[in-house]
């Protein structure tokens, strides 16, 4: 469960978000839509608590932006999965290791890591490419690696910041199908995008934002 209570944020005197309030329920699929610079990425950053509101409060499961301690943030992030437009893969290790990294960096046991990575790679249809380096695979495949890494810790939600921004229409649909599948298994999805045609093909709740304000739900 995610709740924004009257969240306002200023950076260098500039109003980035003003009075943003919304709730996202368990297992929901929602888009954050708006022109570039509207504040979509900022909202996602507030959720994984990379930044904090100046006013108001963000609540993510049992964590509140008003009360969370710095050492608790890693544990909050283990309950989330995050995916970006630019994939953020480690170029020096192969597909398998990129996915395994999320478990290794959080202290997973070797045996369990292998088991779960294999399962995740199956989930996103990447078993064949497991030992390839990121530079050798296509954009769509890279995003699937990123998704596998995001869901390997069984998050309750996947935050996706324009995940199809670098992909062509057909590949975008492939990615959307994966998100749909993940969502059907009970994981919530919050996706920032400005791709109107995708929203029409995969209709879900839309939170529309302009210049840091929610203009329609």
């Amino acid at each position, binding site marked *: 469960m995610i709740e924004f209570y009257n969240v306002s944020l200023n950076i260098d005197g500039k109003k980035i978000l003003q009075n943003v309030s919304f709730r996202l329920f368990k297992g929901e699929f929602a888009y954050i839509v708006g022109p570039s610079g509207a504040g979509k990425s900022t909202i996602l950053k507030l959720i994984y608590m990379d930044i904090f509101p100046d006013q108001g409060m963000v609540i993510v499961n049992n964590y509140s932006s008003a009360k969370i301690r710095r050492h608790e943030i890693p544990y909050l992030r283990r309950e989330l999965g995050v995916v970006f437009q630019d994939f953020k893969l480690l170029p020096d290790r192969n597909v398998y290791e990129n996915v395994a990294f999320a478990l290794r960096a*959080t*202290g997973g046991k070797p045996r369990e890591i292998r088991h779960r990575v294999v399962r995740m790679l199956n989930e996103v249809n990447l078993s064949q490419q497991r030992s390839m380096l990121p530079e050798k695979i296509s954009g769509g495949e890279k995003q699937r690696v990123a998704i596998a890494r995001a869901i390997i810790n069984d998050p309750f939600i996947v935050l996706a910041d324009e995940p199809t921004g670098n992909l062509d229409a057909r590949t975008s649909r492939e990615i959307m199908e994966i998100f749909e599948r993940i969502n059907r298994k009970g994981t919530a999805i919050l996706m920032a995008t400005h791709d109107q045609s995708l929203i029409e093909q995969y209709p879900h709740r839309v939170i529309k934002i302009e210049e840091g304000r929610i203009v329609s739900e």
Partner: protein
Amino acid sequence: MSLGFSIKEGLKGFGRARMATFITITSVVLALIMIGLFILLAINIDHWVGEKRRHLQVEVFLEPAFTDLQAQKIVAKLKKLPEVQSVQYISQQEAAERFKKEFGRDVREVLGTNPLPPSCIVRMKPAYQNAQAIARLSQIIRTWDGVSDVVYGQSLLKIIDRYVTLVYLIIIGLGLLLLVVATVLIHNSVRLIIYARHEIIEIMKLVGATRAFIRRPFLVEGILYGFIGGAIADLVIWILVRVFQNWVYAGIIQNWQSYAIVLGLGILIGFISSEMSVNKHLNRLI
């Protein structure tokens, strides 16, 4: 959490940024070599000063007409003084023998008589091996009946006493300065390495790695820099000492502790500097 991951990542990072690694280790080696040579210099100065002090002696010349029996009284009196470690009596005959040994001619043959007076060589206890104590003692002995003169290496003593503290302070100061330089060098390199690896740090943060976990590979890396830098510095110092002993001065002394200190300092500054820069730069990233 597995330490294996930290060590593996630390080693990986170490091998990855080859140029940065090379520059860092080179600068650390240079700084540590200087520190090591300074330690050796300090040891040698200390040794030299100690030797000089140990060999400090006060020569007490007695009346030439003194019989050995009379002289023995003075010797006993000297031995009772609290500052005195040992007293060696040199009779007229012995003085002549020494003269002969030193100058190759027998003074008794040349002059037909022995003009050399009997004397006592007085050595001081370590606590009194300084100019002040020796001067004070000489003053006292000089007033004794039967003592004609008291002689000691006054100028050398004064020089040692005046400059030794200063020299030590300079050595310690320069040593500390070098230590700071080495720390700054590693600190700087680790900072560069962290910037070069902001990608992996960012991803670690995203997937929920703890701060301690993110830091550990960098600490491993920093310690490794220090250790390798220290080991190479030790090797170079050892070779330099060898060359110096063979070509310049064989009497130079060294001990294993100085090598251990160089290695230990390397590891310590590796740890401290990477700790500092990881702390500082982890917060700024992303």
